[in-house]
């Protein structure tokens, strides 16, 4: 299972030059906004590092995160990640199935005890003993605890693993929780997004392999290099927001002119991600550029934040009934107060 050859040597065997690997390292370093010397160290470190054993666990998820990583428009980059790592277990990508697949996971855990990285996509159902998702007769909860027990670090990929995601949405029938609520004694990185940006996954894994430590993380344990700014901060439509020019519908004149989508429910101002800078499909576009507001998919509970098409400045509560009932009670109290005052006056005027 363990391979003593360096990544540089392995890639050379596949006909990928050292220069190409250095370029890739420099690209990732630039994406992560590393200082020049660190970007160079990343590139050099990648060439000299040994392949990192990775066990990829898929729980309550849609496989979109794996799709994002593997179906990228930049395969020469994203495929490289599978040369940087030894992907020892991944249900979607591995050839083995059934007992052989589980044996591969256990074998990798034994061979790389204390050194392997666990990547998780999908949330973990814990309601009713976690019976809502099982693999080979074991609940996701059991597999997660068993697999991470001797792991070097855990990377939660996608919003489901990072924050619970869609399975966690109200009413959360399976009791879905993020990985961070279960694994509290291991270094953990959240790379949120539905799906996450491929370069964010690749860059974070490369950083971990090269420097042997976690990158700088925000308070939600996300790499600051990719989640340090809001979509709004770097959005090309931001000048229209500042001018107060907003599209009123998805096909009006404002929308065609590229005005801000705030009124159409864009969550860019409260969403931290690198979509406007790294973009998708090889840097072609991102949702706002395609004409739709940001859904805020890399933030916790994005599914339950009052509707994708409700502007941020509106209330998420059910105001009608509450406010109406309060006004009715107010009117009743006012009438009662006035009646008491009249009664007292009448009593006083009668000299009682």
């Amino acid at each position: 299972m363990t391979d003593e050859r360096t990544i540089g040597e392995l890639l050379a065997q596949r006909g990928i030059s050292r220069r190409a690997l250095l370029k890739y390292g420099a690209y990732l370093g630039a994406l992560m906004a590393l200082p020049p010397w660190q970007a160079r160290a990343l590139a050099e470190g990648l060439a000299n590092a040994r392949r990192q054993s990775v066990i990829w666990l898929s729980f309550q998820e849609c496989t979109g995160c794996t799709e994002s990583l593997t179906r990228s428009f930049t395969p020469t980059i994203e495929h490289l990640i599978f040369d940087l790592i030894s992907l020892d277990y991944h249900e979607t990508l591995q050839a083995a199935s059934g007992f052989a697949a589980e044996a591969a996971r256990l074998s990798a855990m034994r061979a790389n005890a204390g050194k392997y990285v666990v990547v998780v996509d999908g949330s973990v159902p814990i309601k009713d003993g976690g019976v809502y998702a099982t693999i080979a007769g074991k609940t996701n909860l059991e597999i997660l605890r068993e697999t991470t027990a001797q792991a070097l670090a855990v990377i939660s990929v996608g919003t489901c693993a990072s924050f619970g995601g869609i399975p966690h949405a109200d009413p959360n029938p399976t009791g879905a929780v993020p990985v961070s609520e279960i694994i509290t004694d291991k270094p953990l990185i959240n790379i949120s997004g539905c799906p996450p940006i491929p370069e964010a996954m690749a860059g974070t894994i490369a950083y971990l392999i090269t420097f042997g430590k976690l990158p700088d993380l925000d308070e939600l344990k996300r790499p600051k290099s990719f989640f340090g700014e809001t979509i709004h901060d770097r959005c090309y439509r931001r000048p229209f927001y500042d001018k107060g020019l907003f599209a009123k519908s998805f096909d009006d004149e404002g929308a065609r002119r590229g005005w801000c989508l705030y009124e159409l429910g864009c969550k860019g101002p409260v969403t931290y991600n690198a979509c406007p800078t790294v973009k998708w499909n090889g840097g072609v576009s991102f949702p706002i550029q395609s004409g739709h507001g940001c859904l805020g998919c890399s933030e916790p509970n994005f599914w339950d934040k009052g509707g994708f098409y409700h502007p941020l400045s509106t209330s998420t509560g059910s105001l009608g009934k509450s406010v109406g009932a309060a006004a009715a009670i107010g009117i009743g109290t006012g009438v009662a107060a006035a009646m008491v005052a009249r009664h007292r006056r009448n009593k006083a005027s009668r000299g009682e």
Partner: protein
Amino acid sequence: MDLLDFARGPALTTALSVFAFGVAWRLVSLWLLPWARDPSARREGARPAWIGAVRGFARHLWPRKPFARAAMVTTVNGYVMHFGLAIVFFGLAQHILFLRGLFGLAWPNLPSGLISGVAVVTLGSLALALARRLTDPVLRLISTFNDYFSWLVTFLPIATGLLAVSHLGAPYPTLLAVHLLSVSLLLIWFPFGKLMHSFLIFVTRGETGITYNRRGVVL
């Protein structure tokens, strides 16, 4: 639930409910209170009561000549502040969206830069009003907690809103949450403090006008 979720959800719902309850309670109870009959005879030539009410309100929009000089700063500053508040509240796109969510009505917004400028002027006006309250011996003597707190809950939404629009001082989600919470505080205090003058000023000045009109006072 994070701070912004709390501010957009339970906080705003509670604040608007308290606001609706308080305003309804105060207006209805005042309206239904027993009215004291005016013992003074209705003067000959007195106009209908509603004209008296309108005249009473209009007459008090500007001070009489003998008082104009002394009251000029207060009067002008008051107009600057109130018009500023109205422009900021009704002119910013985000506020219009909020109101549309409540009442289903919308209108074109003003440029954000203009609103920010008006907000700065309004803050200056509020600061001047506070400075005058603190430095004028008579005004300071008659000022109570109600005055200072009403000033504070008016100042905070403008200040926090300006910071939120400008993205200054903290991440935008935090700024927006703090702004919405400050608005919630204003809404909760509104019916029980001096901010209720927004509604009662029409009643009090109108009633004064009616009384004057009945007694033959020419406004």
